[in-house]
């Protein structure tokens, strides 16, 4: 254990603890923009700077290991001045339109400007433009609101494994881009939306949820995705009894299977919920026509047909194709039913195709 002093309070932490964590343990709330506990450290936004006694420069708390005897101030005049100027510099390149922004109320830039009373930027002059139209049905890329935290790049590489995006060019021309600055659809992007999940501002947002309600207008309902047997946890965003979006739950206690990661279907494919075409009862085909039936009736119908075929043509006249939308356990039971109860090995699964 090492001992350090944070805002006058002495605390003990295990060796190897980062200053950021030590500060949090000491009750100091450090603003962060590029830090994400699940991603490789970047140390680039410099919002988390703190003052360590005896050091000429401020240190970025997220990438600095705590050392024995350190004396740290987390809101000293120098620290506050630096954070304010960093916010002003970001505002000077930002398309500030909170009134129509999807992230109004859940935006780190907005929150920190509020916290440090940054209303305006003294560096406002030439306004660079990074925005681009990306014709895809899922993700809006508005880089005029990008703060270059590179979380999207890191999550795409490290969690999704797609490596669809990276930083292009340098200096203040640097921007997030696909290879050759093309469309997401022409890249290796799989539209998982992990980048939207980690974006701390309104630079990456869901087109599917656009205009349907901001975080403070919706209620979050924790549930499990029904698309496949993986069983990812997510939150349905509900407004006036309608689902208007899906957001991730990154807490591994609540979301042990996927820790917030989703695929394109789970994150963007929830419009089926209120679809006219959605089946609400089983259907039985009679004389070439489908008619609604009850579950009991449908199951009896299927069981009788199976028995009939087996009696007439033997068990190998039957085959089972099961679905990845069912869980492993359900798939196990289904094949067991066919192998043990019906007596055929004609078993296959859509995930194998």
């Amino acid at each position, binding site marked *: 254990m090492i001992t350090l002093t944070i805002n006058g309070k002495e605390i003990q932490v295990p060796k190897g603890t980062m200053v950021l964590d030590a500060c949090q343990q000491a009750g100091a709330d450090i603003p962060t923009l590029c830090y994400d506990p699940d991603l490789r*450290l*970047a*140390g*680039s*936004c*410099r*919002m988390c*700077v703190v003052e360590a006694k005896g050091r000429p*420069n*401020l240190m*970025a708390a997220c*990438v*600095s*290991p705590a050392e024995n005897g350190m004396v740290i101030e987390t809101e000293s005049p*120098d620290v506050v*001045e*630096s954070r304010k*100027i*960093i916010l002003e*510099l*970001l505002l*000077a*390149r930002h398309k500030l339109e909170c009134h129509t922004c999807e992230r109004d109320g859940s935006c780190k830039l907005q929150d920190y400007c509020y916290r440090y009373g940054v209303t305006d930027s*003294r*560096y406002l*002059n*030439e306004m660079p433009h990074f925005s681009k139209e990306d014709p895809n049905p899922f993700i809006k890329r508005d880089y005029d609101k990008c*703060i*270059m935290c590179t979380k999207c790049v890191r999550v795409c590489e490290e969690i999704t494994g797609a490596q669809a995006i*990276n*930083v292009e*060019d*340098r*200096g*203040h*021309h*640097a921007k997030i881009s696909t290879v050759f600055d093309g469309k997401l659809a022409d890249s290796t992007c799989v539209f998982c939306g992990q980048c939207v999940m980690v974006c701390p501002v309104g630079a990456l947002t869901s087109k599917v949820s656009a205009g349907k309600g901001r975080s403070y207008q919706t209620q979050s309902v924790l549930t499990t995705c029904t698309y496949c047997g993986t069983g990812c946890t997510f939150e349905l965003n509900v407004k006036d009894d309608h689902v208007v979006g899906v957001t991730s739950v990154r807490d591994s206690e609540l979301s042990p299977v996927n820790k917030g990661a989703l695929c394109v279907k789970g994150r963007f494919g929830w419009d089926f919920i209120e679809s006219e075409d959605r089946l609400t009862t089983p259907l039985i085909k009679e004389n070439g026509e489908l008619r609604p039936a009850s579950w009991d009736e449908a199951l009896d119908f299927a069981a009788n047909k199976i028995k009939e075929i087996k009696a007439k043509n033997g068990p190998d006249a039957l085959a089972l194709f099961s679905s990845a939308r069912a869980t492993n356990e359900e798939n196990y039971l289904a094949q067991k039913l066919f192998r043990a109860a019906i007596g055929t090995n004609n078993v296959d699964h859509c995930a194998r195709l």
Partner: protein
Amino acid sequence: MAEEMRVLLEYADKINPEIADEYVKIGGYVGLEKARKMDPNDLIQEVRSSGLRGRGGAGFNAGMKWSFVPKNAEIKYVVCNLDEGEPGTYKDRIICEKNAQALLEGMAICGAAIDSNQGYIYCRGEYPFIVKLLKNAIKSAKELGALGDFNIEVRMGAGAYVCGEETALIESIEGHRGEPRFKPPFPGVAGLWGVPTVVNNVETFACLPSILTNGAAWFAGIGAAKYPGTKVLTLTGDTNNPTYFEVPTDYILRDVIYKLGGGVKGGKKLKAVQVGGTSGAFIPESNLDTPIDFDSMGAIGAALGSGAVFVMDETRDIVDIVSRISKFFEHESCGKCNPCREGTFRCREIMEKINSGKATQKDIDNILLLSRVMKKAALCGLGQAAPIPIESTIKHFADEYARKIV
């Protein structure tokens, strides 16, 4: 040129740097032989006690840097920084052109000290002819057996100033974007491909053969006590003698300009001198009697840096020069961290505004505030040093700014 003291450049133009044999004839590779017979700890101690400090800008004791390399690591690398991106600096090119074998020998000495048999030289993209020279020099040394089992590969940069920063350099060798890493971990612990790596400047390596041959005490006795040895300087700007010199490190800046440089061109008066490259402070006439060594320069708020000496005569427009410098940094910022990516951009805007006579005192206040934050909060030395020319000129040449603001 009686005042120069040539150690690294003693045989300049007398031997062919590409031919190892010629270097051996003037006593080359004796230091390496000696180093190989020493216990690595003693070797590191020897280099440490010579007082040799990094010639790339940060002035860190070379032996001390090597001592941080973990002994038990299986693979380690020796990397030579030949990025030489600092405008007005070409001393590493001169060292290669005049005495490349000393650089190779120095790298192999470092290899013996840290138990590494692989070296890389990262060469500035604008020096393709040096790449060729070095490859021939390495081939010749290998053929002669002078380097033993120590191998050296040459890698080429692509013209980014920031790739002279040691961790950006490492990223670049690895094939990534040239962006600095945060430190710690320092390269000595986790460098190239994640393994312990010593990064030293060309001149630092080139000092090693003579230290081994003549002994640490000999080297420690040359020049300034705390930054001993000689330093290769490159003199540019309004000087009568724009060339390179090798001087002991206690040499006075005034003598560089007036004795070696033959004074200011056209008999004009001196206005300012910038030492150490573009990020150096502007030094006024009143500070000229300062020795060029690292600590003396630091004491007047300047830096020896790469050893570039840029002379400006009385007719030069300081604000104009600084606004051009701010454009350089805007162009060279890698874009990784907020204070530098946005800060160098806004510094250039404000400097151009001042230069065009449209700025007010408020703009000066804003740029000073921005400078302070960049120095304190930027990720790497580029962003931290970019505002130094601005700050130092607002301090020492306030009247030049006052003339331009409304």
